[in-house]
């Protein structure tokens, strides 16, 4: 695999620390790289520069109190973080969610998936060396969804919208029209994005057969999300767990067959197209009005410090855009969680970074990292 093994010339190894201040480590991530020329012979990820002990903070706070903090885990898709946390708490305390709230939740989660994948592809292209054009196109489209989030939740990124047993507030007037507009225009944008990128020979030759991840290793290393599906493993928690109301929607799971950066890129585009299908179905099926939060949930939201779930533990997981986002909660019957653990997808997806990068060039390491799709808020917590 490694060309350096066959190299006839003895060369001195160069140790380079890529990051934590580096334009394309997506935050304060650091890779300690040993290079032979430009070829990577060793790579050790170093993280923790953004560690804020999220779990301990949450253990000293009411259950609702850590809801806004979950926004800050993966700050690009705060809605799905809320979703996973709400799901875990609902599992813990047995709160049920009304019909309309379920639809709103799925709607928000799928819009978040669009935001995340669009943005990721933009930044992946930036890592590839395109001068911000894909990023700014991605931002342009993301803005429309963020406007909707602002109208619905009050904040563009730190939504804090989900509550245990429902959502914070009903959709405002006109929100559904905006969703319709986004859903109808998004395929056109995706086509344009693909015209800009997918056919591009430079992109293809840069991405294809780079950072190949085998099926077996992907499963063994607990890789989840688009990365796993790009490796060809059919595992989507939306299909497997059918949490929320995902069993009501018709959608497919796109699978790659090589597991390289290009597959990871393209599986995300295909996933966005499937997401649009789900959104169309939501628009059709969604009840006009109804409860948005169950009675038990409403009391939990109104006075969080009075609300005590029964003792026990629960693990709630969802298919976040980046992979499986899980929350493990242990309650001892007090208003504060006794243990609160996040299973962040991008953190665990980094496990095999070295395996994918060995024997490749520096430039490849950057795009492999880009295709893993990490957000440091989530990696370091």
């Amino acid at each position, binding site marked *: 695999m490694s060309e350096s093994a066959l190299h006839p010339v003895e060369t001195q190894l160069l140790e380079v620390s890529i990051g934590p201040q580096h334009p394309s480590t997506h935050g304060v991530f650091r890779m300690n790289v040993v290079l032979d020329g*430009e070829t990577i012979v060793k790579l050790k990820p170093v993280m923790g520069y953004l560690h804020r002990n999220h779990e301990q903070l949450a253990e000293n706070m009411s259950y609702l109190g850590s809801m806004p903090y979950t926004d800050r885990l993966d700050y690009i898709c705060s809605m799905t973080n809320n979703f996973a946390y709400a799901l875990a708490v609902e599992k813990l305390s047995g709160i049920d969610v009304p019909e309309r709230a379920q639809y709103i939740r799925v709607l928000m989660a799928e819009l978040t998936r669009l935001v995340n994948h669009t943005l990721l592809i933009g930044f992946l292209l930036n890592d590839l060396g*395109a001068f911000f*054009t894909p990023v700014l196109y991605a931002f342009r489209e993301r803005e429309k969804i963020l406007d909707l989030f602002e109208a619905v939740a009050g904040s563009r990124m730190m939504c804090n919208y989900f509550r245990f047993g429902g959502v914070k507030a009903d959709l405002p007037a006109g929100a559904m029209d905006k969703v319709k507009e986004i859903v109808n225009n998004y395929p056109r944008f995706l086509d344009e994005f693909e015209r800009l990128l997918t056919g*591009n020979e430079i992109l293809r030759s*840069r991405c294809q057969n780079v950072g190949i991840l085998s099926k077996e290793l992907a499963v063994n290393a607990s890789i989840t999300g688009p990365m796993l599906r790009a490796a060809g493993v059919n595992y989507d928690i939306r299909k497997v767990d059918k949490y929320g109301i995902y069993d009501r929607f018709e959608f497919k799971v*796109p699978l790659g067959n090589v597991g390289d950066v290009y597959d990871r890129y393209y599986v995300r585009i295909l996933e966005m197209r499937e997401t649009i299908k789900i959104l169309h179905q939501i628009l059709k099926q969604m009840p006009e009005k109804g409860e948005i939060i169950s009675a038990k949930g409403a009391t939990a939201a109104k006075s969080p410090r009075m609300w005590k779930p029964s003792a026990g533990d629960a693990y709630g997981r969802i298919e976040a855009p980046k992979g499986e986002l899980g929350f493990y909660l242990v309650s001892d019957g007090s208003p504060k969680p006794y243990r609160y653990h996040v299973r962040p997808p991008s953190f665990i997806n980094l496990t095999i970074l070295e395996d994918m990068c060995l024997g490749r060039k*520096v*430039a490849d390491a950057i795009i492999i990292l880009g295709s893993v799709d990490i957000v440091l808020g989530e990696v370091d917590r």
Partner: protein
Amino acid sequence: MEYSDPIFVVIKKGILHFLHGFLPEWTVVIISIMLSITAIAIFGPVTMMYLTWLERKVVGRMQNRWGPNRVGIFGLLQPIADGIKMLTKEDIVPQDADKVTHFLAPVMVVIPALLVFSVIPFGRGMTAVNLNVGLLFFLAISTLTTIAIFMGSWGSRNKFSLLGGMRAVAQMVSYEIPMVMSVVPVILATGTLSTVSIVEAQLGGKWFIFTPWGFFAAIVFFLCGVAEVNRTPFDLPEGESEIIAGFHTEYSGMKFALFYMAEFMSAFAISGLTVTLFLGGWGGPVLPSWAWFLLKTYALIFIMIWFRGTLPRFRVDQLMGFAWKLLLPFTLLNIFVAALWQILPSPKNLLVSGIAEAVILVIVFFASRKDSPTKRTYIFAD
């Protein structure tokens, strides 16, 4: 054909004529050269400043934004503001840097960039020095940039700089070869190395780009030129997403500006030379010759900026492969086609060289097929 001298040449001639009245011959020659140098020394940096403006504006427009529009109308004073900022910034030298090399590199990098301007025919009679080996001079001098860049990267004592410098050397040396090879057909056709003569050979719309060999040679030359001046998609030496800023990672303030200036002036020079060699130089109807030259050059620069706004970057090995496996054989075969064109009589040569060119294209295409990316199929599981 009736051409009047461009206005600048008239002014210069007037001054020289006036001085000729009371000064000895040799001083007039020196003054003539001095005037040309002054013009270039002013033109170079000013071009560079407004190229930065143009680039930001065009890329901005491509990215759904305005680009600079705050300083002055249309942001036209932005380069001046940038210049002031650059001048007032602190000049940081790394503690362990090789101080002399680190200091000399930005100076060294500007000199060849300015020197090559001397052989570019900006218009009729507007060549600073009409060397009979002008083309060779250009190619030789522009290669000197490599040394300066490597000095900068070595002197900085930064690993990213060093990687950038290594990449720069490898890239520039590799691309020099197909670049020279793609010029050879032009020399074959004109029988001269003087840039002025090459332009004059193309007067009357006989641009070399309209010949089969010239068309492909022009594309190759331009691509190599883009690679020479380290611009997207060949901007590996300073690939900001990989090695931060490459060879100029450790430069700040005016030294950084000098690197930038050299890059933009080289970009202008390369575009200018492409125009000279393949696009008929300053030849063109109605407009004055220098306007034609600038128009064509800026069109090519627009393409460079357009590349920057669209394309991702190559990888090191792909970049080398592109130069050695694709461009070099192609340019070599192209020389034979150009020779065919020269040997055969006029109407027949178009057909023959056209066919030959097509055959070569097909061969190169099939030879490079195994490296080329493939289309993929995806499974949709339930």
